[in-house]
C-alpha cells in the first residue's frame, strides 16, 4: 500500500497493512522531522513537502518491485506526508515484512534509500529568517 497524505501518518495502520501470517520479521522505518539544520546552524520551524504524485506512486511501485526480486517480501506499506510537517512529526513511515528479520532489515533499508534518491518528492526547510529547498544546490 502506498499513501501520500497531507494528514498525520497512522503508524499502527501501516504496521497492520504490513503484517502477514507467513512473515515473522516486520521492520519499520520512521523518518521524523528534525528541529535543527546542523549545516546552517539554524532552527527549523517546519518543512513544506510537495510531490509529483502520479510519478511518485509509480516510482515507489518500481522500487518495491525491485525489492521483491531480491527479498521474499510478504507484505509492505509506505506512507509519505505532503504539505506542512512540523518537527517531531513523521514525514515517512515504511514497513516491510519477510519470513526472517535479516531480509526485512535489508529490504526496508533498500526501499527507504531508493525512495530518498529517486522518488519525486521535495521538501523546503523553513527558518525564522528564510527558507531553502533541501539538497537543491551544492
Amino acid at each position, binding site marked *: 500500500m502506498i499513501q501520500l497524505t497531507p494528514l498525520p501518518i497512522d503508524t499502527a495502520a501501516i504496521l497492520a497493512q504490513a503484517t502477514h501470517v507467513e512473515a515473522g520479521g516486520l521492520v519499520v522505518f520512521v*523518518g521524523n522531522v528534525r528541529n535543527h539544520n546542523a549545516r546552517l546552524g539554524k532552527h527549523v520551524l517546519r518543512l513544506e*513537502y*510537495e*510531490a*509529483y504524485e*502520479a*510519478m*511518485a506512486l*509509480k*516510482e515507489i511501485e518500481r522500487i518495491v518491485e525491485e525489492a521483491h526480486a531480491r527479498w521474499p517480501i510478504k507484505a509492505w506499506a509506505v506512507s*509519505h506526508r505532503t504539505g506542512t510537517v512540523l518537527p517531531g512529526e513523521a*514525514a*515517512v513511515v515504511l514497513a516491510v515484512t519477510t519470513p526472517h528479520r535479516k531480509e526485512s532489515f535489508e529490504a526496508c533499508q533498500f526501499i*527507504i534509500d531508493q*525512495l*530518498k*534518491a*529517486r*522518488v*519525486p*518528492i*521535495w*521538501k*523546503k526547510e523553513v527558518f525564522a529568517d528564510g527558507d531553502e*529547498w*533541501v*539538497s*537543491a*544546490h*551544492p
Partner: protein
Amino acid sequence: MQVKIKTFGVARDILGSSEVNWSTASKTIGELKTELQARHPALKNLNSLFVAVNHAYAPDDHVLTETDEVALIPPVSGG
C-alpha cells in the same frame, strides 16, 4: 512543437510557474534540457536536473512528442 512542462520545487521557483507551455525545436529530452538551461541559467546551478516523461525518468535520447507529459525533476529530497 508545443510541450507542456510541469515543474516542482526549486525548478518551479526558477521558471516561475508550475506548468509552462514551451514552444521548442528540440527533438529529444537532452536538447530540451539544454534549451531550458540556456533560457534559465539558474537551472545549471542545481545539484542535478532530470526530466521525466509520462511518469518515468527519461534518458537524454528520448524523442519528444506533443502528447508526452513532461516534468522537470530538480534534486529530490523525500523522506
